[in-house]
């Protein structure tokens, strides 16, 4: 590792001289940057289609681990461990996704004496099952949504519980996920049929008919608390993130702080303390996130705990000034958390857009392919976490996140303006992206007012007014297209270099 001397406190580098990053894309780049800043050598792993990926280009060492399909590479814990042994890496940072919440892989690392940069395998296992996580949270005094915790035994029981907690309610498959085996019920007379449907769908999807019941939160916010704890029982919370802006249960814009929490004095502290209590109950250490549903009155309910670094961690870093990845590595190396809750303060506002390779004009279909041109924004208050470069061919095999564009400013209004300015500076050529979609959302008055909830985008899509080009600009667009066409024609001598051009706007 070149030039690393004198870059970091001796304590950490005595423990980790080399860390393997078991991920790809922007998050692998993020972790490798932290390692370089801390004077620790980095090992990248890559699949066949990622040999020239940005995270490989930035690493000190690189090991190929198999085919394009993630089941042949980034999900192959055995090969990743072999790469760590071969290169002599003392630790593995899993990033998010892939093996990051796989208790078995964490246990395998532990048994091989390689540090897994994250919580213990037992904490992951306890929090990995929804029902066990809920039980744990409840025992710790963290509010969970009213309802049953185990499968319903009869329609009679369902009716009784629903009457007690009040309609609407939601039936959920115990083994569930992805919306399968879920039924929202508004009225008592519908509950028996809904239970039958949900149970048989659960049986078909998960081979487990068990269904439980929960209070349905109307127009909830998805607000999560970032926690950070060491291996000695010290734990703090780093404020919240507002992640209500979702499309098909996928977050698209995240921010910190939450406009809702800002308007409810004391709520941050109550949620933060509840999150820390739940995490401590699971024996949690390292960075983690407790997700809550929050209703209109500010009641919050434990949803689940993400036992890893989140995609959206930059917004927390920007408002707290605390580097989560540096702390993840320190904690994994056995350092004590020197920060106390009093050291955590929030300054200004941060917001992040996830730039995806997808085509908003075409049902948000994935749009892999070669990035022909890449113009990225910069200037005050801009943070970019990118996993791509011009000329890179975005593979079809992984998720479509290209770049996280985040901005910081003193106020929410200013951060929105700054993000719009930055999106206007952004150009990703050759493939389609959702840049224009963000321009539309950020310009929306309700969004600017901070009235967010998880159904926001669905409502917004219905009322969305497509951007209409000013005629003067459209004229220039035609002019520019003609100029490029002429340039191209002039380069192909077989075509008439000068002909009369005609343009037809298609949109």
């Amino acid at each position, binding site marked *: 590792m070149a030039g690393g001397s004198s870059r970091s406190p001796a304590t950490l580098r005595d423990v980790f001289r080399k860390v393997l990053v078991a991920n790809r894309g922007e998050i692998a780049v993020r972790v490798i940057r932290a390692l370089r800043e801390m004077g620790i050598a980095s090992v990248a792993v890559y699949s066949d289609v990622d040999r020239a990926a940005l995270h490989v280009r930035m690493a000190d060492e690189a090991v190929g681990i198999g085919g394009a399909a993630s089941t042949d590479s980034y999900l192959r814990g055995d090969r990743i461990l072999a790469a760590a042994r071969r290169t002599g890496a003392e630790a593995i940072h899993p990033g998010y996704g892939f093996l990051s919440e796989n208790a078995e892989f964490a246990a395998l690392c532990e048994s091989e004496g390689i540090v897994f940069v994250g919580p213990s395998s037992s904490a992951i296992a306890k929090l990995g099952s929804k029902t066990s996580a809920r039980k744990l949270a409840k025992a710790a005094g963290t509010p969970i949504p009213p309802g049953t915790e185990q499968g319903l035994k009869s329609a009679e029981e369902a009716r009784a519980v629903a009457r007690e907690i009040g309609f609407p309610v939601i039936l959920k498959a115990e083994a569930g996920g992805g919306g399968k085996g879920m039924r929202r019920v508004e009225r008592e007379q519908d509950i028996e049929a809904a239970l039958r449907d949900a149970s048989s769908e659960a049986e078909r999807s998960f081979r487990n008919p068990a269904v439980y019941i929960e209070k349905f939160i109307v127009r909830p916010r998805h607000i999560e608390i970032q926690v950070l704890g060491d291996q000695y029982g010290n734990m703090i919370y780093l404020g919240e993130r507002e992640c209500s802006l979702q499309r098909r249960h996928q977050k698209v814009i995240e921010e910190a702080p939450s406009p809702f929490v800002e308007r409810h004095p004391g709520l941050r502290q109550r949620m933060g303390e509840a999150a820390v209590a739940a995490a401590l109950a699971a024996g949690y250490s390292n960075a983690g996130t407790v997700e809550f549903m929050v209703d209109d009155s500010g009641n919050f309910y434990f949803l689940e705990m993400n036992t890893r670094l989140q995609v959206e961690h930059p917004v927390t870093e920007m408002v707290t000034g605390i580097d989560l990845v540096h702390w993840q590595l320190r904690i994994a190396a056995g350092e004590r958390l020197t920060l106390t809750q009093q050291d955590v303060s929030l300054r200004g506002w941060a917001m992040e857009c996830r730039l995806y390779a997808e085509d908003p004009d075409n*049902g948000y279909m994935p749009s892999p392919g070669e990035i022909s041109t890449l113009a990225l924004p910069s200037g005050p208050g801009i943070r970019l976490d990118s996993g791509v470069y011009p000329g890179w061919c975005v593979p079809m095999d992984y998720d479509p996140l290209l770049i996280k564009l985040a901005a910081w400013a003193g106020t929410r209004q200013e951060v929105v303006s700054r993000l719009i300015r930055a999106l206007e500076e952004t150009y990703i050529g050759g493939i389609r992206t959702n840049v224009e979609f963000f321009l539309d959302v950020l310009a929306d008055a309700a969004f600017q007012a901070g009235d967010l909830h998880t159904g926001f985008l669905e409502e917004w899509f219905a009322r969305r007014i497509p951007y209409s080009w000013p005629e003067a600009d459209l004229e220039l667009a035609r002019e520019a297209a003609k100029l490029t066409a002429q340039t191209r024609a002039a380069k192909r001598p077989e075509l008439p270099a000068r002909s009369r051009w005609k343009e037809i706007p298609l949109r």
Partner: protein
Amino acid sequence: MKPVQAEPGVWSLTPGSRQRELRVEPDGEQYRVTLRGRSVRLLVEDPRSWAGAAKGKGASRAAKVASPMPGRVVRVLVEVGHIIEAGQGVVVVEAMKMQNELKSPIAGTVTQVQVSEGANVNGKQVLVVVEAHAG
């Protein structure tokens, strides 16, 4: 106004004192022009070839179902000879963890199936051809 090409395909145009930077990218036979994050597709064509293309289009009664993206074919839902409805799914293509069912824009008979399950396909590759019924 003298147009200035700052980078390949990037034009700075200044009608009067106004200034706009436009990024132009060929997109099939069209051009995608982007101005401060906003883009529009435009067709710029020699009038003669345009007339020809229009005529050809009018004569055709077949719909080509193409993959809108590079990906892998997960399922082929029709066979040659099948009679299908407009909007009926014909092929499922997967990319970036997302499955997309491609639908026929017209009712008619499947005359070609140019792909099989498990195959990799390119963006815009034609997978299925559907011939409309006469009348």
